[in-house]
């Protein structure tokens, strides 16, 4: 349990790893918009190519990227089944039984929708979660939401909370391990019995964990105050984020991609769509 890397970040030095985290957030948003704007087979093909390209330049192993589909496989199947059976069509049905009729449009639509979910998960994965450390992400969010400070949104406090949460995840995992060992040593059983029984066995872990987390929080607050913490006002930062030229190149390309998707939607010679 101790060696689990939290989050899904895989350290590396690819082009995607080196992009400024703020720019990554921005292009990720553009990427998501693109995916939801894609309307026909050609624009989906374009997005599929783009996603494959992103996966390749992230230098994250394809196996790991594909593994990220596993938790959503049920949603994908669900989407496929519903789209196949519930999409009406204009031509003759390809097959019909009982109250269901399957049309060509339904099949196309099912494939495109499944593709949409899959490229959404894998693409945002390599753009953001796999290639950005959680702490860089917290910094990026703080920086991007900075203007909201003017209308008294506690952006700095929010980022600080995220940082501290990330800082304490390994500590709390260690603590959970220790509590579980202590309970096991006294004969507790976490791996047998019904689900209800196993969930109940977790209560004696959670209670001491919560108690100690609160105690830690209190001590940490005192320690922070001793180090002159008084909110975000007037603070400097050790690592300041700097946009580089390459970040704007990325932005340019993603805007270009978005425009391309719209153009393909509008002028595609292949009119298969849903």
């Amino acid at each position, binding site marked *: 349990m101790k060696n689990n890397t939290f989050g899904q970040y895989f350290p590396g030095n690819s082009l995607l790893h080196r992009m400024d985290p703020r720019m990554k957030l921005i292009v990720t948003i553009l990427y998501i918009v693109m995916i939801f704007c894609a309307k026909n087979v050609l624009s989906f093909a374009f997005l599929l190519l783009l996603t494959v390209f992103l996966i390749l330049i992230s230098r994250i192993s394809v196996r790991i990227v594909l593994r990220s589909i596993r938790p959503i496989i049920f949603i994908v199947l669900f989407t496929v089944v519903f789209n196949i059976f519930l999409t009406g069509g204009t031509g003759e049905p390809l097959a019909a039984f009982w109250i269901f009729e399957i049309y060509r449009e339904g099949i196309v639509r099912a494939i495109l929708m499944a593709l949409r979910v899959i490229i959404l998960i894998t693409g945002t994965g390599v753009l953001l979660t796999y290639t950005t450390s959680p702490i860089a992400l917290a910094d990026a969010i703080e920086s991007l939401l900075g203007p909201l400070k003017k209308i008294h949104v506690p952006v700095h406090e929010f980022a600080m909370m995220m940082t501290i949460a990330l800082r304490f995840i390994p500590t709390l995992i260690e603590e959970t391990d220790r509590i579980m060992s202590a309970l096991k040593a006294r004969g507790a059983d976490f791996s047998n019995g019904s689900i209800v029984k196993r969930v109940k066995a977790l209560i004696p872990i959670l209670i001491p964990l919560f108690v100690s987390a609160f105690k830690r929080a209190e*001590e940490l607050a005192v320690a922070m105050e001793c180090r002159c913490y008084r909110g975000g006002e007037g603070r400097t930062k*050790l690592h300041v984020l700097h946009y580089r030229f390459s970040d704007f190149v990325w932005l340019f390309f993603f805007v270009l991609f978005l425009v391309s998707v719209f153009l393909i939607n509008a002028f595609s010679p292949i009119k298969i769509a849903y």
Partner: protein
Amino acid sequence: MSFIEAEHVSFTYDDGTPESVPALRDMTLTIEEREYVAVLGHNGSGKSTFAKLLNLILLPTEGKLSVAGHTVSEEMSEDDVFAVRRQVGMVFQNPDNQMVATTVEEDVAFGPENLGIPHPELAERVSGALECVGMSAFARHAPHQLSGGQKQRVAIAGIIAMMPRCIVFDESTAMLDPVGRSEVMATMEKLNREQGITIIHITHYMEEAARANRIIVINDGELFMDGTPREVFSRAEELRSVGLELTQSGELIHELRLAGMADLPNDCLTEDECVEAILRAYRARNGGAS
């Protein structure tokens, strides 16, 4: 004016309520700049309360306290409070619960960031502080990858980076293994010796207190003894009466003296001194033969 001046200072938890607990009573003492002071006391003696008064986590309920030239009072402005905290750093007992950031260097930078230190001085202070505690090689490590002693040294670096005049160690060695403890002790002594930082080390380990230049013993919230380690250690019976045990070598000498070897000096601090003293006494008995 001394760095810390306490006149008849008392502190009571939950003052004015039925549950009020007096933790410190009528403390009068001064601590000069550049001193290396150990504060001894058994659990619940009020020594940690004393530490918390020094950087204004707690304010005295009675008496007059001044720290780094600022007179402590309820009416102090927030800026004055932080001006004191900036000069009196504090290292706590649990190394895990005082690290804020996810990497060592960012944690060390936390204090100076709060002070608004600009670049490039900020980065210089961080690398300087890490070098001072010998943790430069770990700048990019995450806190959970470090041992207890290493974490505590990072915590010390975090304080050094704020450039305080005084560092209070509130039982900072209590949760460490012997290796970690000696690392922290060595760092403490180095800071006092090389940078002239006032060190106030709150502890219940006699061996650690013996290394200071001055020992203050607190018992039941009252100042019990105040003197050099030699003076304090020579009063073994009194120390024992307040629940403090001598070091093992001190204990040995004390027992030997009680057993009739009254010519042994009663103020040995280290094991070496103890060996020397016993040898000398032994030789004296045997008429100086070899």
